[in-house]
């Protein structure tokens, strides 16, 4: 499919060789995250389970974005539902519809597995990600995240 700017966008399942580019696309502490992403690739890419979904977006055959999610069941008493817990689009390729394409695709995968709700959790100060999920149709859900300092 072609983006609003005429670029060729395709979405595919991630493969182990995508790890370095995914780490480069991730925001935040790269060093600490190497082990994190290794674990995610082991669980979400190498095991090949249908209920764990890791997609990447390509523009002209180069990876420019990723989205990761899965089906979780009965946590906090909730029936099975989809979770999106990581996503990013390369700054140079933002606002071209790639985030939306990846979200539509992960929802299609989740629907195929049979879940009807998708959830996520966002830092309330992060206007960009919040606006993005709002744009994808998210509203406040029925669960509230609570936390407490224990030090």
């Amino acid at each position: 499919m072609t983006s609003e700017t005429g670029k060729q966008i395709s979405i595919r399942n991630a493969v182990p060789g995508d790890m370095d580019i995914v780490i480069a696309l991730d925001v935040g502490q790269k060093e600490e995250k190497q082990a994190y992403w290794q674990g995610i690739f082991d669980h979400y890419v190498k095991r090949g389970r249908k209920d764990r979904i890791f997609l990447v977006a390509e523009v002209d055959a180069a990876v420019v974005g990723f989205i990761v999610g899965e089906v979780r069941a009965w946590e906090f008493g909730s029936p099975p539902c989809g979770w999106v817990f990581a996503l990013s689009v390369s700054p140079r390729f933002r606002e071209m519809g790639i985030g939306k394409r990846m979200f539509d695709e992960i929802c299609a995968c989740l629907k195929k597995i049979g879940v009807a709700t998708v959830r996520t959790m966002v830092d309330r100060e992060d206007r960009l990600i919040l606006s993005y999920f709002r744009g994808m149709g998210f509203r406040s859900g029925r669960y509230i995240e609570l936390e407490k300092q224990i030090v």
Partner: protein
Amino acid sequence: MKLNKASMFALMAVLELASDPERQLSTGEIAAKYGISTHHLAKVMRDLVHNGLVQAVRGVGGGYRFSGNTQRTTLLDVIQLFENMESKLDIPQGMATDLPILAELKSIATEIDDLTKAVLDTITLETALKSARQRT
């Protein structure tokens, strides 16, 4: 959360005009559609023009047209032109403000304000209009 009349009228007018940026509508037409006071809306429209969200179109059939950015303007951007969304605790003058219970009440009010802001400041006009269209 209780929005004042001006904010509500502004949200209605801005969303109505933004739903079709090519179209111009008079204050009377907007007021009639939403069943609100033309007089009060007229004042709100002047503030919206002043802040660049709408443009006054002169001449016969004149009115207002949306002139902002639907993808960047949030509901809070509109509301804040008319009111401050921070909770006001009605603390009487002269009352000791360093009491732990008052501090706790203030902290709860801040928690509510932060959540309100996280909602209103991340719904763009475009997103609100998209959801509204799905209701028809």
